[in-house]
């Protein structure tokens, strides 16, 4: 297949459904082993292990200063790891300078060359490969067509809008067909509406070209939308790696549960472990009854996490569910498709709950109403840290 045909192909070359990380024994495409990066006394990245598979769109998610950008820069070769190894497609990157790596980076500031036209910016990398001028400009032109900027080819970067600059940066990073594309906050400088449109465009381009992407972002919505898998980082450590749904539904720590989306966190001790039942005595909700889960012992300190939308709000007391509490609607925020509630329990604890508004003419639970809230045992996520 020619390059042009590959770019123009409408069908994704790699289906989004393939999940190589689920199959045991698949060889990872990028392998980060025990990587550490220290700047003086400060440890930016500590003992990170990470396997990324071919064709993935992997998001490193975390607040600023969590080490996600440092990890990305080590993959690009701009920073040397203090210890540990990085392997890309079986090749150890330890002694490979940035200009010899099979990676390209899209910078947060875009870093477009201000003295070159859009076309020259995109062709720059190809010319460095030793491609002839005509071939390089032809490929650059194809790439610009794909990001719908062929009309702006002769403009300088400062004559473009923010969204156009973002697409030039993407085209320039993709034109060399890198094995791995690194994107540092690729949508950070765009306004909300443009960002949402661009997210899906980015996914489409990634699937069409089949290039492995690693995206660094602090925006959880962006990570959830883009990623095949997310690595949540905090203080130089990857807290959890998983598909967006795993990260949201089964967070492995209070930090991840709280960082992704909204959550009600309660603290307690395991009160009883029986073959058919496990009971947690929580400070906020009193006893919570759950089906038995392996690995917990009596007296163990645990936390419980419940997403706001997992609560069922009813006027009548649910008869079958033992995990039921009564409270009063203290605040109510109607945002159209959803309503957010703050419910004050009898013991003074405030619970965040939300209900989707499916019916136009339903009689919604309103301010100061007495309500029963209940949670299914499977929606109560037990955390040990």
């Amino acid at each position, binding site marked *: 297949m020619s390059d042009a045909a590959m770019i123009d192909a409408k069908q994704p070359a790699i289906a989004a459904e393939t999940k190589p990380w689920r199959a045991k024994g698949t060889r990872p495409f990028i392998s980060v082993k025990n990587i550490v990066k220290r700047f003086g006394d400060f440890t930016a990245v500590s003992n990170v292990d990470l396997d990324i598979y071919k064709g993935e769109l992997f998001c490193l998610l975390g607040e600023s200063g969590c080490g996600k950008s440092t990890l990305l820069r080590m993959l*690009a070769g701009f920073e040397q790891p203090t210890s540990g190894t990085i392997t890309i497609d079986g090749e150890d990157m330890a002694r490979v300078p940035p200009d010899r790596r099979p990676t390209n*980076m899209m*910078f947060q*500031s875009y870093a477009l*060359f201000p003295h070159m036209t859009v076309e020259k910016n995109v062709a720059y990398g190809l010319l*460095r490969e030793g491609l002839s001028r005509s071939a390089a400009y032809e490929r650059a032109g194809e790439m610009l067509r794909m990001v719908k900027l062929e009309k702006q080819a002769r403009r300088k970067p400062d004559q473009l809008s923010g969204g156009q600059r973002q697409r030039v940066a993407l085209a320039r990073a993709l034109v060399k067909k890198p094995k791995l594309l690194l994107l540092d906050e690729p949508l950070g400088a765009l306004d909300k509406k443009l960002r949402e449109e661009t997210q899906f465009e980015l996914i489409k381009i990634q699937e069409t070209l089949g290039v492995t992407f690693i995206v660094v972002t602090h925006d959880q919505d962006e990570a959830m939308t883009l990623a095949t898998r997310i690595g949540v980082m905090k203080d130089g450590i990857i807290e959890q790696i998983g598909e967006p749904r795993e990260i949201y539904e089964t967070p492995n720590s209070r930090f991840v549960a709280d960082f992704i989306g909204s959550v009600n966190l309660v603290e307690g001790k395991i009160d009883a472990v029986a073959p058919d039942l496990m009971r947690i005595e929580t400070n906020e909700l009193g006893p919570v009854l759950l089906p038995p889960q392996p690995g917990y012992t009596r007296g163990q300190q645990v936390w419980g996490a419940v997403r706001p939308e997992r609560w069922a709000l009813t006027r009548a007391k649910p008869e079958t569910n033992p995990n039921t509490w009564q409270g009063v609607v203290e605040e109510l925020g109607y945002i159209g498709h959803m309503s957010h509630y703050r419910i004050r329990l009898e013991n003074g604890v405030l619970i965040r709950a939300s209900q989707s508004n499916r019916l136009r003419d339903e009689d919604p639970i309103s301010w100061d109403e007495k309500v029963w809230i209940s949670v299914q045992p499977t929606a109560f996520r037990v955390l040990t840290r």
Partner: protein
Amino acid sequence: MNALTRSAPWRGTAWMMGKLGISGRTLVIAIPMLWLLIFFLAPFFVLGRISLAEAIIARPPYTPLFERGPDGSLEIIASLENYRFLLADSLYRNAYLSSIRIALISTIFALLIGYPIAYYIARAPEPKRSILLLMVILPFWTSFLLRVYAWMGFLRSNGVINNTLMGLGIIDSPIQMMQTDFAVYIGIVYTYLPFMILPLYANLTKLDGALLEAAGDLGASPMVTFFTVTLPLSLPGIVAGSMLVFIPAIGEYVIPALLGGPDTLMIGRVLWDEFFGSRDWPVASAVAIVMLFLVVAPIMWLQSVQNRREES
């Protein structure tokens, strides 16, 4: 409002300026404009007028512009004779060419030496950067003349360099360095180097490090990155620095007079000789006017080149 702005003279002046349509802003700009007018344009016209006169032994030593004819009519005495004389005499032509050559070569050397220094300072971390900048400016705190004399101490036949080389047994007899073009180059490059470094530093310090990383990421070696990104982006700094070295160097008098030999021909020296040696003010004025145009022409050309680059 303080007491000053409430006082009668202040208010009177403000009222009068308002009547004349002069705003405060105009006044602020007018002061430096007036300064330039008085101290640049006026002497320029005086020189221009003298250059059209004829040298006579009198005081002042040139013919007046206006003269009463025998019939009482007013005559204007002006000729381009001095300019024709400059063109005809190869001495002046050679002096101009030699000045341009020396200034050009000095500028190139200042650029080659100054660029790495400016780059290094611009990339240095903060406390170090300030110290390095101070070191560049430090020589200005001592007299220029003194520093040129210090170079004489180095370059003389029994100076520091020759003595060291002979002491080490590398040479048997001293190398002639004083009174050569080499010494003039050393003097000019040394003196004007800070004027090259400072605008280059100002430019290079603004260079976004991410651009260099981006070039590297796209496969450019550090060398290629320099020639395709750093150098083109620092062009305005190169032009500014080169101007600041070339323009004063072309009219330099003191350095060739002190360090140069009898055959180091520079227009500043010719000018001096004409004014104070021959007391031929008209020819000297013509020399100065021509030099002015020689200096202005390249500036205008560079300006237009830069404007065209910005437009495209």
